[in-house]
């Protein structure tokens, strides 16, 4: 008997650790993403179209028409942003839709555990030309379909979920050219994607099977290096790394790896390969240095920009100075690091959904009076929050944390054991002050909740 789908009961009370239950006004309830029921209404149409001997282009046209219909209705009914439901219906009508939409285009696929959305946005900027992209972060096939149907630009830069890379690659066989950017692999949504090593093996197989593609690979990550071993057309990128706890044992022989700054090696001989593009203080390539001054904060975004640089400059031959200038001008991507207003207070929103992401943000968040961390367990977040114990919250300089989200008690327990003062509440406004900007670290659906409830300042 499985309990996965059983509805959680609403919490009956809130607690402040060591004190009496908090009586904070419960002003909002977390909204779980709902399944697109609308799509089911179109099932009769789906079966008619699939069984009929329509020729492929006509079927594609019908599929795209149906998608626009569903997406429009979905937006009007307030069921969502209106990209996923329609995409799903269109894919049911025409399973080969993605390959038709990619035909003749110059395609860049961005995948990895962390940094996909930001790297996609930086790459779009770096290409300096009209680009079709699913930069809002809807990275399943349905989101890809919606993005491609809406924009017929020759170049497409697509964020792809790490477990969908092989499918999307198979769909790219009619494209003019394909570049695959492999950012990193770490544990994320353990209940769904189970084992990072098996993803690395899937990538490797998919890239070997695909017709010639160019890969831009962050080889500072041993699992990425493993995935591109033996491939011909690889631009290797080296970036400083601080997170390697997900790849401590060798992908080839499972012995322990030893790490330097962006380099690693194993007794079995598997060692980080020489890189073509490196990030130190500047980006180095081809004997020259290119200083970055990104508007986006954090060492992780400098690493993302280096990957985008390698794609735009090394693979697509764009001018390095123009590429750097375009990336420097990117200020905020899909709300990440944006300061927004909610209930008369200002909040800086940050997204982290796994240990590697938390590690990066712990270095980004400065010392402050308090911090909000908001953790949900929706389908898109993963139902197993045990990764909270692999995330180095101990590195935070803030000692008081407001715990929010459907797994706020898991979070509060984790942080209390680490010695933090924890405040468990749905209403963080009670603890913030006028004029203060409070940092918020939220996982996927919690971040979406914050975007919905807040406005730009």
């Amino acid at each position, binding site marked *: 008997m499985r309990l996965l789908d059983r509805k959680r009961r609403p919490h009956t009370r809130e607690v402040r650790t060591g004190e009496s239950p908090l009586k904070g006004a419960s002003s909002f309830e977390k909204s779980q993403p709902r399944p697109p029921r609308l799509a089911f209404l179109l099932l009769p149409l789906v079966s008619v179209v699939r069984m009929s001997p329509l020729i492929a282009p006509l079927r594609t046209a019908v599929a795209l028409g149906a998608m626009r219909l569903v997406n429009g209705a979905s937006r009007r009914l307030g069921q969502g942003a209106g990209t996923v439901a329609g995409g799903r219906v269109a894919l049911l009508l025409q399973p080969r839709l993605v390959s038709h939409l990619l035909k003749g285009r110059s395609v860049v696929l961005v995948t990895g555990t962390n940094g996909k959305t930001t790297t996609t946005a930086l790459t779009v900027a770096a290409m300096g030309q009209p680009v079709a992209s699913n930069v809002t972060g809807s990275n399943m096939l349905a989101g890809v379909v919606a993005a491609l149907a809406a924009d017929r630009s020759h170049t497409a830069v697509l964020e792809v979920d790490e477990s969908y890379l092989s499918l999307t690659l198979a769909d790219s066989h009619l494209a003019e050219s394909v570049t695959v950017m492999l950012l990193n692999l770490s544990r994320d949504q353990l209940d769904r994607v189970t084992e990072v090593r098996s993803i690395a093996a899937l990538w490797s197989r998919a890239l070997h099977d695909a017709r010639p593609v160019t890969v831009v690979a962050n080889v500072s990550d041993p699992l990425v290096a493993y995935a591109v071993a033996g491939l011909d057309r690889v631009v290797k990128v080296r970036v400083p790394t601080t997170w390697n706890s997900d790849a401590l044992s060798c992908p080839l022989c499972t012995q322990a790896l030893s790490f330097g700054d962006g380099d690693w090696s194993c007794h079995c001989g598997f060692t980080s390969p020489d890189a073509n593009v490196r990030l130190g203080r500047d980006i180095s390539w081809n004997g020259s240095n290119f200083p970055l001054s990104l508007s986006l904060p954090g060492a992780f975004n400098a690493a993302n920009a280096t990957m985008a640089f390698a794609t735009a400059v090394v693979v697509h031959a764009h001018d390095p100075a123009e590429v750097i200038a375009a990336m420097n001008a990117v200020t905020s991507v899909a709300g990440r690091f944006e300061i927004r207003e909610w209930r008369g207070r200002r909040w800086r929103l940050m997204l982290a959904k796994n240990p590697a992401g938390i590690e990066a943000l712990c270095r980004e968040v400065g010392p402050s009076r308090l911090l909000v961390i908001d953790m949900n367990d929706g389908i898109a977040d993963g139902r197993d929050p045990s990764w909270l114990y692999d995330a180095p919250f101990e590195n935070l300089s803030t000692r008081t944390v407001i715990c929010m989200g459907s797994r706020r008690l898991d979070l509060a327990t984790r942080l209390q*054991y680490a010695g933090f003062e924890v405040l468990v509440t749905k209403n963080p406004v009670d603890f913030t002050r006028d004029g203060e900007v409070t940092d918020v670290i939220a996982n996927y659906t919690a971040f979406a909740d914050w975007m919905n409830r807040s406005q730009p300042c």
Partner: protein
Amino acid sequence: MLTVAVVYPDVLSTYGDSGNALVLRARAQVRGIASTVIECRFGESLPHADIYLIGGGEDGPQRAACDYLRRDGSLGRRIDDGAHVLAVCAGFQILGASFEVGAGEIYQGLDLLPIVTTRGTQRSVGDLVVRVGSELLVGFENHGGVSTMSGGDALGEVVSGFGNDGRVDGASAPGVTATYAHGPVLALNPWLADEILARAVGYQLEPYASVADDLHLERCRALGALS
């Protein structure tokens, strides 16, 4: 001084299991019990400790960890000398007579528990609730094993989830507590953390109220295990 050893956290801690050490240390500290946590890395020899924590891991690391523990050879002796082992998921399977990895490859375990683990037809992924005496144990399981006991006691009866075989979960033997529940299991079940601590120090601990109690209650309610 209470010594807690985390066994090979570099290869056996896929699901936050190393957090069990944090829980033990914190709960010992509030009782005025000095403790130290030793992380025994893969390939190092096992230190002397009062409590050994063995977590979950992927197939390759699980086999490698089992090889190293067998070569080390000291875990069984430590249990005989009075140490306590908490083994979770892959760590639990390692303690048995054998376990199956990949496609039908049978691997010798450490033979400290009368348990044989085979591959089930599907992975068990989801919340797990187990009745252990008068207590409820909650956690999250994520494994493909079916564990069959040829003697000895399970840790408890499955209320919901799969555990060893859909009926019982884990094992309880002198010096060993084993379960399929991650979470980490001691974070979600403060009563179990205190039980293991009390056994190690040899006396009953004073109650300690913390947010973990609310978490345990909330999980039991959310999973329909409490009326």
